[in-house]
């Protein structure tokens, strides 16, 4: 144990009897089963966390990343003392504040002020402490006018703002934080992030879990990656995020042939995306050949996605859609064949169908992007009714820095090939990274 470590976790493990997490027993089972139920033999076990060791230094901000079910929540629950480890030990120095969810203690019938006191007390603040910070909390939440209104009359945004404000003013030497960033509108999210940054720089030690990788990168000094309950990486945040991205989905480049048949998906399944081939090239050429980095996709390239769709029977599909978003989950581009009258419904024959989606110019800042594919009937947006097959992401696209020669040559050139051009649903989207995205999609049926 290093002398300046404020948290030392040693070989932590948490085992669940399978079913125990979701199910509670019925007394009848115990009465009928007698002592049988008490023995663990024959019951399946699941190690939600296994052999996890790490340290957090004084004032360090540690990011914890991993896929859903990787053990992040379990780890935070142990550190917050909500649940006990099965094996291992944690030593922590100083006062611990934990925020696994904002607003858990809020009651709809109570007013804003009353909820601040109640929630503060649940989180561990004294009445005196809360009174001293009340004005600051109210100002942060921008709620001055509504503090004597019962919370049940608040909008979701107002509720979340106030809840975050209470949590953000919790004074502790160690803070354990999960998921609290996703509150409010984009502007308030920025404010929350700024507050988190302030906390991170104030010398407190923070354990931070978020699905927002951009926030993790911005806030954390170090990152650990969990996978299937085990710690697979411990080091600088950048490499941790890269490790996670590699596990979460191999990034796709030009020329890749992808098998989509095994992916998690939603929809009725009457037709399914089976495979996709990605080709990119300079704008006017179908594909680039012979270049050194032929596999790279650059900003401004023409992107061609050739998909194979298996249909159970011949059918007409109202909408074929493509989404492009950041890995953090922010949608940048949502293109739908239904928006282009020239394309019309897409006729699929029974069996294998091949379609080509062409984005004549894809302007994206270098980085990784989630690309989603969907078939829907009737027209639908992302999720919800009508999806026949929805993959989000279908793959993660790697966009590299464009070589100078290919960059910025002239205006977009709507292409008339195939059956029609889809004007983009979001022709110009301003993105946090500062890039402008414009595009049009061309759908060809073969």
């Amino acid at each position, binding site marked *: 144990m290093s002398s300046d470590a404020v948290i030392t976790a040693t070989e932590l493990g948490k085992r669940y009897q399978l079913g125990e997490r979701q199910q*509670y027993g*019925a007394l009848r089972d115990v009465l009928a089963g007698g002592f049988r139920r008490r023995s663990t033999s024959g019951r399946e076990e699941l190690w939600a966390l296994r052999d996890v060791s790490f340290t957090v230094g004084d004032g360090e901000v540690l990011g914890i990343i991993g896929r859903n079910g990787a053990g992040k929540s379990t780890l935070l629950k142990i550190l917050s003392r909500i649940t006990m480890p099965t094996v291992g*030990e944690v030593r922590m120095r100083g006062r611990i504040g934990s925020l696994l969810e904002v607003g858990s203690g809020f009651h709809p019938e109570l007013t804003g002020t009353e909820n601040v006191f109640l929630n503060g007390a649940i989180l561990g603040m004294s009445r005196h402490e809360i009174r001293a910070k009340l004005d600051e909390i109210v100002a942060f939440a921008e709620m001055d006018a509504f503090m004597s209104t019962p919370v049940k009359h608040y909008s979701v945004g107002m509720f979340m703002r106030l809840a975050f404000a209470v949590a953000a003013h919790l004074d502790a030497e160690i803070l354990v934080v999960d998921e609290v960033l996703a509150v409010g509108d984009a502007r308030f999210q920025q404010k929350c992030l700024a507050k988190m940054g302030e906390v991170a720089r104030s010398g407190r030690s923070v354990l931070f879990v978020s699905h927002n990788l951009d926030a993790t990168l911005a806030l954390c000094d170090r990152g650990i990656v969990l996978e299937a309950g085990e710690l697979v990486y411990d080091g600088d945040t950048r490499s941790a995020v890269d490790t996670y991205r590699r596990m979460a989905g191999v990034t796709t480049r030009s020329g890749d042939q992808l098998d989509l048949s095994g992916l998690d998906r939603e929809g009725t399944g009457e037709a399914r995306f089976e495979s996709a081939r990605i080709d990119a090239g300079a704008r006017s050429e179908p594909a680039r050949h012979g270049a050194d980095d032929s596999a790279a996709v650059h900003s401004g390239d023409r992107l061609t996605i050739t998909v194979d769709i298996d249909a159970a029977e011949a059918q007409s599909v109202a909408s074929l859609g493509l989404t492009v978003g950041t890995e953090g989950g922010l949608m940048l581009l949502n293109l739908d064949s239904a928006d282009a009258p020239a394309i019309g419904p897409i006729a699929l024959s029974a069996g294998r169908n091949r379609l080509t989606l062409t984005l004549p110019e894809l302007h994206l800042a270098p980085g990784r992007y989630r690309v989603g594919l969907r078939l829907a009937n009737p027209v639908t947006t992302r999720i919800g009714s009508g999806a026949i097959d929805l993959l989000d992401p279908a793959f993660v696209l790697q966009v590299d820095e464009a070589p100078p020669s290919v960059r910025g040559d002239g205006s977009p050139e709507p292409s008339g090939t195939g059956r029609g051009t889809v004007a983009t649903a979001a022709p110009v989207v301003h993105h946090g990274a500062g890039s402008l995205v414009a595009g049009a999609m061309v759908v060809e049926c073969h």
Partner: protein
Amino acid sequence: MLWHPWTAVSTVDGHRWTVITPNRPPVPWRELWARRELLGFLVWRELKIRYKQTAIGAAWAIFQPLVAMAIFSVIFGRLVGVETGSVPYATFALTGLILWIFFANTVGQASNSLLDNERIVSKVYFPRLLLPVAPILAGLLDLLIGSALLIGVVMLDANPFTWRLVVAPLAVSLGVATAVGVGLVLSALNVHFRDVKYVVPFMLQVWMFASPVVYPSDTVPDAWRPLYAINPVSSAIAMFRWSVLGSPWPPWSAVGVSVAVALIALAVGVRVFHRAEGTFADVL
């Protein structure tokens, strides 16, 4: 101070260290004491919400015993003709009902307290023991309001109050200790076995007839009194009636048995609850 660590704590180099291990720590009395302000907030929330959500608010505390008194007076006072000596049956029944309704309501609320607060239990750490205790303490306000009604009724009877009234809080304490012990066990069981939710109302119904609510405790033969006293509520009501109405004092053997059982229930409740506490968040 935020909170005292749940598990072993030691102060080394002027720092406080929290050590989390799979070994269950002893009952965290110090921590419970440190979080007494939270208990106050939970009691306050309990009362505030009830009075906000219900149309007649505090009047429920009078309405419920009053209606039960009226019904019991007709059935047991008139039709059955239960003998209550110099005290009118209505007054006699009300005295028992005030204490019994407190007990039954708070045990019911305590047993559901963890499920009702599921979101907090699975997301924030604090000594969970405070959750079942809060509605029981909040119930004391109803008891107080009910007592005002009782005082009015007793004065209508022109029945004088005596120094015996100082024993009333002791009788109530016996009821509170029993309610806390039973409430802790039931709330912990309720998390693991949802049957408990259905068993509790039924259990309380049976329990009422095992307590001297509608009949005087001295109708129970003397030989059976110690056995009868295993139900601490029986002695609590008998003592309460003694202090308010001047009814006969229960045999000391019965009082002794009841007090012992209540204390055991309290100790067992705390232990059972504490043992189960570690897995609440895993099951909820």
